[in-house]
């Protein structure tokens, strides 16, 4: 038997506890989705940039190819390329058989407001690295 002044109490408790569980969960899933998107986009960007740089005939052309490939891949992933950082290096230098290493990083904002997007706060940097080989028989 339930007292009359307890009527509806369970509903309120369920709502409060539900909110307490669901709000952080939805926020965490939103951040996770962004992290996933960032990781996919940066890995695609690093991979494409690596292949492009490995087929370039000079450092200047390789740098331009890396920038273009990174921007294209990040835009495909719905990410603003301006926020990302990309670096590349040919080891020992851009020549037949060399290794071309590309690293792409993107900051995922932890605090985001619904419908407003980014809010000032900490970011988690997602980084991807790819190593491609310059064809040892290519013409230069």
């Amino acid at each position: 038997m339930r007292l009359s002044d307890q009527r509806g109490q369970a509903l309120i408790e369920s709502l409060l506890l539900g909110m307490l569980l669901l709000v952080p969960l939805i926020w965490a899933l939103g951040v996770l989705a962004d992290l996933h998107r960032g990781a996919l986009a940066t890995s695609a960007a690093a991979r494409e940039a690596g292949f492009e740089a490995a087929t370039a005939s000079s450092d200047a052309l390789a740098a331009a190819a890396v920038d273009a490939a990174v921007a294209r891949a990040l835009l495909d992933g719905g990410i603003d390329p301006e926020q990302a950082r990309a670096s590349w290096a040919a080891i020992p230098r851009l020549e037949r058989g060399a290794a071309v290493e590309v690293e792409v990083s993107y900051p995922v904002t932890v605090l985001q407001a619904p419908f407003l997007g980014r809010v000032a706060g900490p970011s988690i940097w997602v980084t991807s690295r790819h190593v491609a080989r310059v064809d040892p028989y290519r013409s230069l």
Partner: protein
Amino acid sequence: MLVIGLSLVVFAITGLAVDGTRAFLFRRSLQNSADAAALAAAAELDEAAYYSSGGEVAVLDETAARRSAAEWLQSRGLPLKAEVATAPDRVEVVVRGAVSTTFLGLAGITEIPVAARADASPIAGGP
């Protein structure tokens, strides 16, 4: 009771999302590594066969191809096991790894096995 049940469901869904995402991303890393290793290995030509045919026949130096793929995978520093199979006209790289789970460990699933495969062939000619 309802709240406890709901919490368990929410926890399970979060666990699947987190651990599943990590496994998916690790598989992508493995695929990128396998692709790059296969391409590097396919560039190891048998030069004697190539030059004696006047540049018409491109076949692999299989020993060099296996070594090249192994070195390439090692340079990535990923925790993986690799199998490299070669034939004169083809190299196949299979990489396997495992992702340690965080949430799914509570359900007895401590790691998720992940694998990726890539193959490449040498071709004569080109730019």
